[in-house]
Every structure is written in C-alpha cells, then in structure tokens.
C-alpha cells in the first residue's frame, strides 16, 4: 500500500508542469553556476601562476642588477619584498565562500605583509552582484522550489477532493504522509543530483577539482548537507500543508517563513551582532595604533635629543629598548582588542544567524568546502608566519647589531605556506549546523504527522 501511494505520488509529480519547470531550472541553474564558478577558479589559478612567475622574475632581476650584497639585501628585503600569489582554495570551484574577499597576492617584507587586490580593472558590478555559486543556488532557489513542491501536498488534495477518496480506503494516515514525503523529496532530489553530477564531472574534466579522497569526502558531505537543507524546506511545507486547509493560505505562510529565513535573519544577524558588540572600526584601531607610534616616537626623540644635543650611552639604549617594548606591547594590545571584538561579533552573528536554516547551510557548506572563515584565518596566519620568517631570514643574513651582510641566495627566502584545513577539522564547526537542520527536519515532520492525524478531510 505504501508503495502504491509512493508510486502515485511520483507519477503525479513527474506528470505535473512544475516538475518539468523544476527539472529544467535545476539543470540550468546548478550546471550554469558550477560552470561559471569553475571558470572563475581556473582564471584565478592562471592568475596565481602568472603572479608567481612574475615575482620570481623580478627577484632574479634584482639579483642580476644589484651587484653589491648589501644593496641586494635592502632591495630584496625592504624595497621589494617577496610577492606570493594566493591560489584559490581547491573547492572554491564549487563553493566560493570567502574566496572573493581574499587577495590575489600578498607582498611580504620582514614584519609586514600587504595584500594585493584581485584586479584593479575588475568590473565593480561584480561586487554588487556576486556570482551565484552552488551555495547560493541551493540556499535560495532550491529552498524555494522545495516549498513549491510541497506546499499543497495535503491541503491541495483536500481542495481537489482526492484526499477523501483515498481516506475512504483502509490506508493509515502515517503511510500517506510518509509516502508524500518520500516520493516528493525523491522527485525533488533526483534532478538536483543529476545536475550536480553533471557539473562536478565538468569541473573534474577541466581539472578544477582534485580527485583525491579528501575532496570526495568534502563533496559527499556537502551534498549530504544540501539534501538535508532542501529537506528542511520540503518538510516545513508539508507541515504547513497539514495545518492549513487551503493551498493559497499554505503558500502564503510558506513564503512568509521563507522570506524571514532566507532574507531577513541571515542579513540582520551581523547587524544585530554589531549593535550588541560594537567594538571599534578598523579605521579607529589604525588611528589608535598610529597615536601609539607617534607617542613612543616622540618619547624616544625626547630621550635622545635632550637640550638640542644627541645623547648616547648604555643607559639611553636601555631606555630606548624599554620604550620600544612598550610600543610593541601596546600595539599588540590594540590588535588583541580588535581581534577579540571581531571574535565576539562573529560568535554573536553565528548564534543569531543559526536561527535560519539558510545561514546554517551557508556556514556548513563553506566550512566543509574549506572556503570559509577557517580558510581565511589560515591564509592570514600563513602570511603572518611568512612575514616573521622574512624577519628571521633578514636577521640571519644581517645579524643585529652588526651591519655586515653575508651573501645569500633566492632559495633562502621564505615562501607562503598556505595549507588547507584538513577535512575533519574543517567539518567540525559544521556539526552544530548539521544538528540544527536535523532537529528542524524532525520537528517539522512530527508537526506534519500530529496535524495530519487530526486533519479534517471532509
């Protein structure tokens, strides 16, 4: 009986116009989004190779042109530095995440790193209307299609009068509900998986996605999350259709919830977090740090330039070092203050955002794909590490306080060690999102079940 019901549901869906439209949309949107993001990825990858090649050529040129070791040292470490390309994360061909926010390259000198933008000739509208990647398509379009598939599952059959005819047979209500859920979800999922499969095969074919076990695990988990997310909206619509008695009412309620979940909560979450945890703006922090620089600089000047004469001596040097240590401590304090404030804002935004399954899906997808905040943090850590390594290398070539510079080669210069976050660690923050989506699914199905048991089929 269950299979008869399920078969009927599948045939009814497949024969409907909305299935045809949905199938076409899935194929078009999912494949188009993967195609576009894959090409973006390939372009960034080519750009990264080009940046690396150009940077190496520049350094070699310095080595050729600057004959004196000391000049070469200053030119490499302080004037030029080392420019390193920031390659796109491997999974960003499917899930862009924070990749557009990451620089194309980073220019590193001892103790300092400067980010170089992706392209100054870029189309500004691209920032205004970002590329819809798989996360966007699943998050916005597929959630809406899931609603359109299920909003009239029960109330629509009541309106049509077929529910009465079904219920006049010895059919348990739970079988009807389960068949509706399973068949509807299956019909919704198959076109999605076909479209994703086609897109992934294309991405693999053009070499924009590694074929190792780590990528497969990420891809599998990502698709699992997508299914769970789509199921959340599908089950929600099923529950709403079991509560209401008119398709129009059900559609209105479902769309209302969709708007709140997709458009309102995720966009308001960072704003609310900023209201609760205002912190200082980066500009203000920069001003404060600048003030510290100026103050310590003045104090050092006062120390060494007393009564118009330059003062020397061990005591003065010690006092100067003390002031420099104070400057470092106070600058670090400001940095810590800023990073703590950002951390608190991030945590709060995460908590508020997770009131919406759309935010859960986005957080989980970028975490699993390795293109989220973790990967951005890993990049920042790597550039900081490289900057420190540059300082250490510079000190090893010209050890303080001596001023003699030893000869050095290009191979001694440190490189940017950009390592991707391992899958197990990357997926860790997604566990909470997985739980939230699973709980929502169970809660909506239970609501649908309880309401349908008491549903007035007359």
């Amino acid at each position: 009986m269950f299979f008869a019901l399920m078969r009927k549901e599948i045939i009814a869906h497949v024969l409907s116009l909305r299935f045809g439209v949905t199938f076409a949309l899935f194929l078009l949107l999912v494949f188009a989004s993967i195609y576009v993001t894959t090409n973006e990825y390939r372009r960034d990858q080519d750009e990264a190779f080009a940046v690396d090649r150009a940077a190496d050529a520049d350094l070699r040129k310095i080595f050729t042109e600057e004959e004196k070791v000391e000049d070469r040292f200053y030119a490499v470490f302080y004037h030029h530095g080392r420019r390193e390309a920031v390659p796109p994360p491997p999974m960003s061909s499917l899930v862009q995440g924070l990749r557009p926010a990451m620089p194309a390259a980073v220019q590193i000198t001892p103790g300092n790193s400067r980010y170089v933008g992706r392209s100054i000739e870029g189309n500004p509208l691209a920032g205004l209307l970002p590329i819809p990647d798989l996360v966007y398509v699943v998050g916005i379009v597929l959630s809406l299609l899931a609603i359109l598939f299920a909003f009239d599952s029960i109330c629509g059959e009541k309106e049509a009068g077929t529910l009465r005819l079904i219920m006049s047979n010895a059919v348990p209500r739970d079988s009807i509900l389960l068949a509706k859920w399973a068949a509807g979800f299956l019909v919704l999922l198959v076109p999605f998986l076909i479209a994703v499969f086609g897109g992934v095969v294309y991405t693999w074919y053009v070499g924009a996605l590694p074929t190792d076990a780590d990528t497969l695990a990420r891809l599998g988990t990502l698709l699992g999350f997508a299914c769970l997310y789509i199921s959340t909206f599908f089950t929600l619509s099923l529950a709403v259709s079991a509560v209401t008695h008119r398709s129009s009412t059900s559609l209105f309620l479902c769309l209302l919830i969709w708007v709140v979940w997709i458009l309102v909560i995720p966009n308001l979450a960072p704003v609310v977090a900023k209201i609760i945890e205002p912190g200082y703006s980066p500009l203000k922090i920069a001003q404060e740090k600048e003030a510290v620089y100026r103050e310590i600089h003045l104090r050092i000047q006062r120390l060494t330039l007393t009564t118009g004469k330059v003062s020397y001596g061990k005591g003065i040097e010690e006092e100067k070092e003390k002031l420099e240590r104070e400057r470092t401590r106070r600058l670090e304090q400001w940095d810590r203050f800023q990073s703590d404030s950002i951390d608190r804002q991030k945590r709060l935004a995460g908590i508020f955002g997770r009131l919406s399954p759309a935010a859960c899906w986005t957080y989980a997808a970028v975490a699993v794909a390795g293109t989220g905040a973790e990967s951005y943090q890993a990049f920042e850590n790597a550039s900081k590490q490289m900057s420190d390594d540059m300082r250490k290398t510079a000190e090893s070539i010209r050890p303080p306080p001596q001023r003699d510079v030893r000869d050095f080669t290009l191979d001694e210069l440190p490189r940017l060690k950009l390592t991707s976050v391992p899958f197990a660690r990357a997926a860790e923050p997604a566990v909470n999102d997985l739980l939230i989506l699973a709980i929502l699914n169970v809660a909506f199905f239970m609501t649908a079940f309880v309401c349908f048991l008491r549903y007035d089929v007359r």
Partner: protein
Amino acid sequence: MLEIKDLKKVYEDGTVGVDNLNLSVAAGEIVVLLGANGAGKTSTMMLILGFTEPSSGTVAIHGVDVQKNPLEAKKHVAYVSENVTLYGNFTANQNLKFFTRLSGRTDVTEDEYRAVFHRVGLAEKAYYRRVRGFSKGMRQRLGIAIAILKNAQLIVLDEPTSGLDPKGGYEFLEIIRQLKAEGKAILMSSHDIFRVQAIADRVGIMRRGQMLELIERQDMGARDLQQVYLDYMKEEAAGATSAEVG
C-alpha cells in the same frame, strides 16, 4: 451490513449535524436519505466513513465498529462522492489501478479492469485518456467503477446523480440496481424524489440531523413521497418562521 445506533454529532460551533440517528442497511438493500441542504445526510456519511468522530452513538460496518477499528471497517465500504474528483493528470486506467491497489486488491487483471470500465458505460477509447478531460458523468461512472473494483459490501453514494443529464442519471441508477442485485448494501443521499422512488427500498427523510421518517418501499405506492417530503419541509419552514417571530 450497516448498523447505526443512537448516532449524534455536534460540531464545535454547536451545530447539530446528526441527532440520535438509528439506521440499518442490509445486504441487497438500497436506502436513500432525502433532505434539504444541511439536513445531515452528508454528516451521516462522513461519520460512516470515519472522517469525523461522533459525539455519541456507534456505527458498525459488517460488524466492525468504525470508531474502534476504522481501518478494518473501511475495508468493507466504498465511497462515491457528489463530484468524483480523481487525479486529472492520470489516465482513467491509472486512476482505476491506483485506487484498486489502495483498497488492498492486487489480484485484479487487466481484463477485469476493462470489464468494469465497460460495465459502467465508459467507452474503450476513454480508458487511456486523461481524466482531466472527462465530463462530470464520465467521472461519476469512473467513481462507481472504482467502488465496484473495491468489491466492498457497502457502497455509500453522496448525491451521485446530481448534475447528471436525465439519460446519464438513469444509466447511473441502473448500475446501482445491478449492484443491489449482486447483494451490495447501498446507502445514498439524493434530492431527486422521482429517481429515489424508482430505486429505493427504503427512504429516510432527514431534517436538522434527525431521521423524521423511514418509509418502506411498499408504503411508497400508497403515499405520495413528494407530498410527504414537502409537508416536512413546510413544517421546517413554519418552525423557522415562528422561531424568528418568537
């Protein structure tokens, strides 16, 4: 086959749908419920089918209490509504097969499906046509075909001939007569006194949920059924007017 005892249904808004109804329908018998809109005919049928719970009283089909064991009771009843609404995107054949499987019958052959389809007066060419394009009469016939294929002992029909043309109505009643001859118990509601008179073994006149009178077939000849019905309706109208004046 059908036993209704002291059945009462009061809706949440206080409306009395069915008021102390006692009725039985035996195998091979046609009982017709006659009454104005809101008299309680459809409410009675909804209670028989277990779609609503009675406030008091019992309904038993083939000895099975509908309230205590609804799924078992539903195995013995087939339902044809006033407007048979099937799946429009499905062909007649698909609709027949789906509802037959749903009734628990998996042993029906293709020949049997076709035989029943033709028996209710539907042409072969309609067998693979989508139901969306069917007229009301065709859908009613398909509805009765589904009921026949279920092979239930009790068939409940809610105003099945309303909206049908005279020929269609006559043919529909012929099918019901045949079902009676096969030993099926039939309970139907109708507004059409003349057709009722032609087919019913007993006619129950309902008003405000109450069964006012149950007229046996042998008494129908002696009494003018239309006049009896109209007298009851006049009483109702008078009652309503005096209540308004009062």
